[in-house]
């Protein structure tokens, strides 16, 4: 019997499953951090997690609230400076998987975390790119986690903060980029992978109980489906337990004043 789970949970667990024990992962705060640490606590105990604050091979027992919590540093193999992190480790090609999210995504998995509306007179000023512009091109491949909605999954980005598959096809290659870009987009409804030819993000698996209508209703472009679409394997009891324990430990740690 499948245990009950929330949309966020299947999203995090499905993303975690895609990570391998040998991966070196550049982790962002929020769901990427939850997914990467869940992978470490379940099927990939040897996975290497890197946060842009400079912590190499960190093993936090609780999820950090910020990218540079003391917990990350204290449980790391070592901590390097931020220039070194971006030069030797990210640009140096030492990271196999980068995790990204964003406020807006298009069908080629380009991301916007900069502005809604025009740049000079924004309706909403978002935080900006941070590490994303170079994570998107320097990591071996990119996993994206984003809850699906018409506001977030848009026909045209207001601003391209980080490159996905650009305008599709061999666009990355034409720009001289040697890495694979977004190979997987996990949402609360389904999983997308790029079409081998067009590179359009294409649904390859649908979470249990979700319909194609729900997916289309939460997407600002006409969704394409792979020839064979699987049902996403539901979270197992042990995956759910590990994730919930992680979140509970985290809540206790952050709830206490510090």
């Amino acid at each position: 019997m499948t245990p009950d789970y929330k949309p966020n949970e299947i999203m995090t667990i499905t993303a975690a499953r895609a990570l391998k024990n040998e991966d070196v992962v550049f982790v962002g705060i929020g769901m990427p951090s939850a997914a990467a640490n869940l992978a470490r606590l379940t099927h990939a105990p040897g996975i290497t997690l890197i946060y842009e604050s400079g912590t190499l091979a960190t093993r936090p027992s609780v999820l950090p609230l910020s990218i540079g919590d003391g917990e990350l540093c204290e449980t790391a193999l070592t901590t390097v400076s931020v220039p070194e992190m971006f030069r030797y480790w990210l640009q140096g090609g030492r990271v196999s998987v980068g995790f990204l999210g964003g406020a807006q995504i298009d069908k080629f998995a380009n991301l916007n975390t900069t502005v809604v509306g025009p740049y000079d007179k924004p309706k909403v000023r978002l935080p900006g790119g941070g590490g994303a512009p170079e994570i998107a091109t320097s990591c071996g491949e990119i996993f994206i986690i984003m809850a699906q909605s018409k506001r977030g999954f848009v026909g045209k980005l207001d601003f391209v903060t980080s490159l996905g598959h650009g305008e599709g096809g061999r666009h990355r290659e034409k720009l001289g980029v040697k890495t694979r870009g977004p190979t997987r987009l996990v949402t609360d409804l389904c999983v997308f992978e790029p079409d081998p030819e067009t590179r359009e993000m294409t649904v390859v698996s649908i979470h249990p109980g979700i319909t194609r209508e729900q997916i289309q209703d939460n997407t600002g472009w006409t969704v394409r489906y792979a020839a064979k679409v699987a049902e996403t394997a539901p979270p197992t009891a042990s995956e759910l337990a590990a994730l919930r324990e992680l979140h509970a430990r985290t809540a206790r740690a952050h709830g206490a004043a510090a």
Partner: protein
Amino acid sequence: MARVLPLAEAVEAIVRDGDSVAMEGFTHLIPHAAGHEIIRQSRKHLTLIRMTPDILYDQLIGMGCADRLVFSWGGNPGVGSLYRLRDAVENGWPHRLEVEEHSHAAMANAYEAGAAGLPFAVLRGYIGTDLPKVNPRIKSVTCPYTGEVLATVPAHRPDVAVIHALKADREGNVLLEGILGVQKEAVLAAERALVTVEEVVDDFGPRSLNACILPAWTVSAVAVVPGGAFPSYAQGYYKRFNAFYKEWDGIARERDTFLAWMKENVLTKTPDAFAARVRALQAAE
């Protein structure tokens, strides 16, 4: 050579209206006490440089200290928006704020190049993004060997770097440990540097042979401000006060709650308040 001064005197001596100022600290060791002193001394027309403008820069911007912001990620880490930054950019309150926007990699490289005495930094960056369209300072060079076109950014050479560190010794040498961020580079790239520390010790004692130490002759002034990074943290001294980052979301959302908070917690306070805040936090644990 570093002089040890009270914080108010140090800011008076080192930070001038119109300066470009880099207050750095990557989550760890953010120089809140020094920033509050700059607000109390009403510095104006600053160019504020920082990879991750967070609560401290939200405060400086909301209080009208800045004309210009050079940055790469402006949010409340793990929480959400910086409402004062957004209000300045979206609505021009309290006045218009010019922004020069980069990626983290470019900002880190720009500090690194500044520390290295170079006029620009080279990175494999910004490929396929819109940032070069809105930031004319992002340019390129061609590799003389491979023909590859790489992005460039001008080196950061701030008038002033402001950082918080763990400790200084009597000679004014400064020790950092833990998450180092870009602080060393910011200090070495800057014309002048102001460092607040948790404590001054006679001698650093046993330490790694490769400890991150800024020699006294790279620092203009050291001010002792225990708790000076609060609500950020100082490795081995106190933890990050995560709850306050969440609280800030409510305080900063509206102009009046923001101004009331600033009056109560900054304008009418002194640097001593920081030590008391840390003590209160630690007592509550």
